[in-house]
């Protein structure tokens, strides 16, 4: 099976799952933005994405995408470390054209993963999971309040969003390069689109987290 046996095949799997996850976080950021406009509308979306069969199916596909992306990331890293050998250079330098994120994707991914686990514990484990087990749950905005009324949540979330920005800013264009859709003209274009896409996702998430914190701690009343 070339998707597991060849280095390009393994990278294709990383690219396709990565692009799928980028689409997911983009929709997630857009969905959260609804809460800034109307908490009632946000509650309706949470109810729509509750224990319904399509939401459960979507969650399973999403979890599968995450799992494959993470497993392949560790697999590729182990192979790369083996290929690098045991001897390290005494002096190393980073060429100016090389992005910092590109050389630290695993570390950034681990930070995003830790953030994801925290986020799942704070929301999914209290919303969709108990609903699937037949328990009564509160409105979506009640969970937002329970989470963002704590001051430590905002800085932790911003760190997670920053790691996500770096991860997407390299991963997005790298995926298109791996899928063979780049050339001399399109490499800088994909790099530019990557930075913009990552920045839009970051700004959306950051503005939402800041707004929820200010709203639920009573600093603002809108």
């Amino acid at each position, binding site marked *: 099976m*070339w998707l597991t*046996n*060849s*280095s*390009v*095949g*393994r*990278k*294709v799997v990383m690219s396709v799952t990565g692009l799928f996850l980028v689409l997911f976080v983009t929709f997630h950021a857009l969905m959260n933005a609804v809460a800034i406009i109307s908490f009632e509308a946000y509650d309706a979306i949470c109810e729509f994405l509750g224990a319904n069969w399509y939401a459960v199916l979507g969650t399973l596909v999403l979890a599968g995408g995450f799992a494959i992306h993470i497993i392949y990331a560790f697999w*590729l890293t182990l*192979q*790369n470390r*083996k*290929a*690098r*050998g045991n*001897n*390290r*250079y*005494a*002096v*190393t*330098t*980073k*060429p*100016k*054209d*090389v*992005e910092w994120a*590109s*050389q630290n*994707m695993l570390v950034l991914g681990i930070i995003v993963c830790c953030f994801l686990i925290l986020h799942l514990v704070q929301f999914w484990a209290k919303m969709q999971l108990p609903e699937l087990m037949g328990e009564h749950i509160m409105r979506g905005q009640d969970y937002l309040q329970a989470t963002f009324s704590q001051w430590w949540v905002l800085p932790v979330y911003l760190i997670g969003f920053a790691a996500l920005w770096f991860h997407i800013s*390299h991963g997005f*264009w*790298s995926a298109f*390069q*791996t*899928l*063979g*859709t*780049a*050339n*001399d003209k399109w*490499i800088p274009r994909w790099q530019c689109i990557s930075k913009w896409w990552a920045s839009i996702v970051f700004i959306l998430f950051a503005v939402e987290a800041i707004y929820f914190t200010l709203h639920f701690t009573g600093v603002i009343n809108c």
Partner: protein
Amino acid sequence: MHDIPTDTSFLEMMDILNEMLIEKGEEPVTFDHDCREGICGMCSLYVNGHPHGPATGATTCQLYMRRFKDGDTITVEPWRSAAFPVIKDLMVNRNAFDQIQQAGGYVSFQTGGAQDANAIPISKEAADEAMDSATCIGCGACVAACKNGSAMLFLSAKVSQFALLPQGKAEAKRRVKAMLAKMDELGFGNCTNTGACAAECPKNIKLSNIARLNREFLCAKCSD
């Protein structure tokens, strides 16, 4: 080292060093070299954290001592990659590249008699790109620079120089699959598109070659 003229090449400095060591009755430093014109790809020194040293678009033999300041400490290391085992001192075994070439980096069909000139038109863009790819000297700087020990830039240059021209297209699918399989078998790493290979390449082989290699491989697999 003392009194090295600024117009001395790096390899000449290594020669002077070795002469001094031999005069003192010590073992000279082993290093690879051949043409000393930036063509053969034999010189393979990792100088102050850069494959081929701090000069861009140049091999170690094209590096001159005027690039360094008087009194500088210069750290010289061999390529470090599991696929390039160190033979001695600064000399590494790059036979893995030969094996990748032997797996498909050639045109094997009978071409017959010579065609009339311009019988098969080739765009200047394709000809230029094929020529640029063919300038890869197989020195291994891309592997040395890559944190993953990947040989994708080398492989992509070798695949591209054929894939862009009519005489190479006939075997393009077989070639890309065979050469990639050999590269994987030899234990090179997976490309993560950091771009360090292209940034350090003495022949300025471009990163877009890797996208072309991926494209060629995916098309070959889809048509299986």
